[in-house]
């Protein structure tokens, strides 16, 4: 946390198609520890929305409990959000998305929030293919409650005061793949060059988009012996594939075509281009994704858009929910009256 609010000076900054600068996408001042990875993820959201030319009030921000979950207040201050109950964000998101599919749903959660108390809700949101961008700000600990190991802590990683973790970790990426998630990625708070395009692609995706973001806890898990520290992550950092979102109006330039780049047309318009980095790998192939993750070497942190499937229906489509948000729907349609009810009831008699 800083002693003063970040002053607002933006005359020198680039304006997007809406005439807005990145500053228009910020929220209130962060109260997290100085250097927390979560603040960088916040900055990435700001940047992604600005670059996508989305109106800053067009998101719905949902979160659970944790330092990570607090961050929904720190970006898109003009959008509404709910800081819900620990591990229960997916239910809130489900309800909100069902009644108003017209917003960009952004879930922010932690490894504790999603993989311990909230793992059930997390799994079902994936199963329903809820149309949202779901970010796990993964630091291997419960930051807010002062650094206990979370379910993503690696075997052998050391806590701040010396305890060593012996339980196997849950990898949210593998979990999401097995549950049939349609967009699965991993990023790192220290690499916005990768993270921002991933967020943009995820926003263009229709269905559940998971980004597991290694986001170091600078206070309780950034020491020597921790496998979620900045130093450790930088050392074993391995981008596998680079995803870029190319909006409809822009051309897919030669830069993307060489090296066998893959282009995936997105449901909401535009394309995601995937550039291989070193390995021969096709993120449209689920088997390859499993193989890659299970054969990774040692402590490698494999990042990038690891799996994408644009063909599956999302929750709204599967349940034939109306495209029109309920809050703008004509009242007579929303509540057809007692005659209609009687008619429906007759069907059961």
């Amino acid at each position, binding site marked *: 946390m*800083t002693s003063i609010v970040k002053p607002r000076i933006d005359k020198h900054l680039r304006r997007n198609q809406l005439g807005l600068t990145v500053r228009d996408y910020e929220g209130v001042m962060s109260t997290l520890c100085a250097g927390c990875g979560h603040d960088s993820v*916040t900055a990435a959201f700001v940047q992604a929305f600005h670059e996508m030319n989305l109106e800053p009030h067009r998101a719905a921000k949902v979160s659970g409990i944790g330092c990570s979950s607090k961050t929904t207040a720190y970006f898109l201050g003009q959008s509404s959000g709910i800081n819900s109950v620990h591990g229960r964000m997916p239910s809130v998101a489900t309800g909100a998305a069902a009644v108003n599919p017209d917003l960009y749903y952004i879930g922010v959660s932690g490894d504790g929030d999603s993989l311990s108390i909230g793992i059930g809700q997390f799994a079902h949101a994936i199963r329903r293919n809820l149309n949202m961008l779901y970010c796990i700000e993964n630091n291997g600990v419960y930051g807010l409650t002062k650094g206990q190991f979370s379910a993503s802590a690696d075997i052998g990683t050391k806590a701040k005061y010396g305890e060593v973790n012996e339980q196997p970790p849950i990898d949210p990426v593998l979990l999401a793949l097995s549950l049939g998630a349609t967009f699965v990625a991993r990023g790192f708070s*220290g690499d916005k060059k990768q993270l921002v395009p991933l967020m943009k692609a995820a926003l263009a995706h229709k269905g559940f988009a998971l980004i597991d973001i290694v986001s170091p806890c600078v206070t309780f898990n950034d020491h020597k012996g921790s496998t979620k520290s900045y130093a450790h992550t930088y050392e074993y950092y391995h981008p596998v594939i680079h995803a870029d979102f190319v909006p409809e109006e822009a051309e897919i330039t030669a830069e993307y075509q060489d090296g066998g780049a893959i282009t995936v047309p997105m449901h909401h318009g535009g394309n995601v281009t995937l550039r291989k980095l070193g390995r021969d790998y096709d993120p449209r192939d689920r088997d390859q994704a499993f193989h890659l993750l299970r054969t990774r070497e040692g402590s490698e942190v494999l990042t990038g858009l690891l799996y994408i499937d644009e063909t599956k229906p999302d929750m709204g489509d599967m349940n034939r929910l109306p495209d029109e948000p309920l809050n703008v729907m004509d009242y007579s349609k929303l509540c057809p009256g007692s005659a209609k009810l009687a008619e429906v009831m007759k069907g059961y008699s």
Partner: protein
Amino acid sequence: MKPTDTADPDYFHKVVDCQWACPAHTPVPDYIRLIAQGRFTDAYMVNRRSNVFPGILGRVCDRPCEPACRRGRVEDEPVAICRLKRVAADHKDEVADKLPRAPIAQNGKKIALIGAGPASLTVANDLAPLGYDCTVFEALEKPGGLMISNIPSFRLPERVLDEEIGYILDMGVKLKTGHRIDSLKALLDEGYDAVFVGSGAPKGKELNLPGRQEADANIHIGISWLESVAFDHVKSIGKRVLIIGVGNTAMDCCRTSLRLGADEVKVMARKPREFFKASPWELEDAEEENVEIVVNHSPKAFVIEDGKLVGMTFEIMEYDTDERGRITDTRVVGEKTIPCDDVILAIGQENAFPWIERDLGIEFDKWDVPVVDETTFESTRKGVFFGGDSAFGPKNIIWAVEHGHQAAISIDKHCQGLDVSERLPRGLNLETAKMGHNEWAYSNGYDPSQRRQMTHVELAKRFKDLDTEVELGFDPQQTAVEVERCLNCDVQTVFTASACTECDACIDICPVNCLTITPNGEEADLRQRLSAPADNLDQDLFVSEDLPNTGRVMVKDEDLCLHCGLCAERCPTAAWDMALSEIFLPHADDEAAERARRRAAE
């Protein structure tokens, strides 16, 4: 790029835009902080050390610091640096006991100073406390040079001049007024150990057009006319006055005319407004007094009737400019005669040295200007120094002061038998401004207030006499707001690459996006890859050593940094710190002190 060498005092000095731009390198943010604390006397003394005349300069300085001020880039208007200087001068307590004093015993060296303008007075100010016997020769009846003879008292009251010149004379400096030096040779023969020529650029330029001779009685040379007004030799002027030229002298001539009875004053400019030499604030002040500024009129002839000036003919000009605003073509598109009673010529000044014999070993160049060394201010004759307008042509007071400081160093060295070109280097001292967690030794918040406007005496009251000072000075409220507009650019961002974990926290928080972590490259390439466009090439990029985790570098574009300290507050490892920089800029007394230290050590 190579890692930036922040040990070079010039690197951080340049970040303090105002101080770097000030010819005398006044530590501006330092004195503004003192004013903010109500320590006006201390603020005055900090100023006086650099610029000798804070009360004078707080009113009429040319203020090269203000266009340079970072605040002008961050929003639109710079900090009112000059106005704040006046606040220090107006509200200080007695300073006599804080001023340098002449030692009881002099050192036996005699210095002659020609002209009692700011250049000579600064030399005397620096040398008298070291024990030099200084004598100033001034042709006019009062000391001050153009500050008393030309700058009108409605801009610069005489009491302010008296006070600040008095501080120098009180150090035992001898002043001989009404004493014009007619022969340098004769003066040199009197056996002075060194001579300083601070005689200014006293010759106003002529405009030899048809009718000039016949109309002589009503055509005046600006600087001589202002001098005659200042010394009460001229007390009136005609009703309709034309001023030729649109520099600062023209502004003083038109406003003085209004106070001597003129009621229709026009300033005639040959070119469009973008090309005016006058400072914008002087133009504004003149226009506020209903002076009309007429552009694109080039003087052609004086119109005489019955042997008397009745008007002036002008050619009406048209100019073509290129995209950078430079004139590419000029045309005359008409002619116009404007009636008038008097004309004042304000088209420039020149040096003139009829009293310097050309066989003294003092070399003059092809424009008949003495050859003067730009660092030592020595002429081609050892022991004869020039400074102020006499050295390199007309500039302004603050340049005259800086020339004086540098010449004083040379004169001291010359008199001690030392090499004048061997001078103490500049220095830099950095001290952390951190006082505790997110607590700083300066006010790091950003106050978005606009620049405060100076209040002026009502128009009706100003023209009654010549002496009513137009500017009232800042009141306490204006001062309180204006001091907070200063960004404290001397509190530097200091980076330790080995401590950085590349968490990006500073990059995200920086309100002006001036930080970037990126692979190193050549400057032109790096400038393209930063968080925000780095298109102000006058401002440096800081480039760190390679960072430990990835080998990338931290790059800072100095252009818009607010010195808000948020990078340091956000950095988990204190890789960024805010540190107060003090730039050491040696004066003659520093040189003398260093000599004494060395002698003591031997």
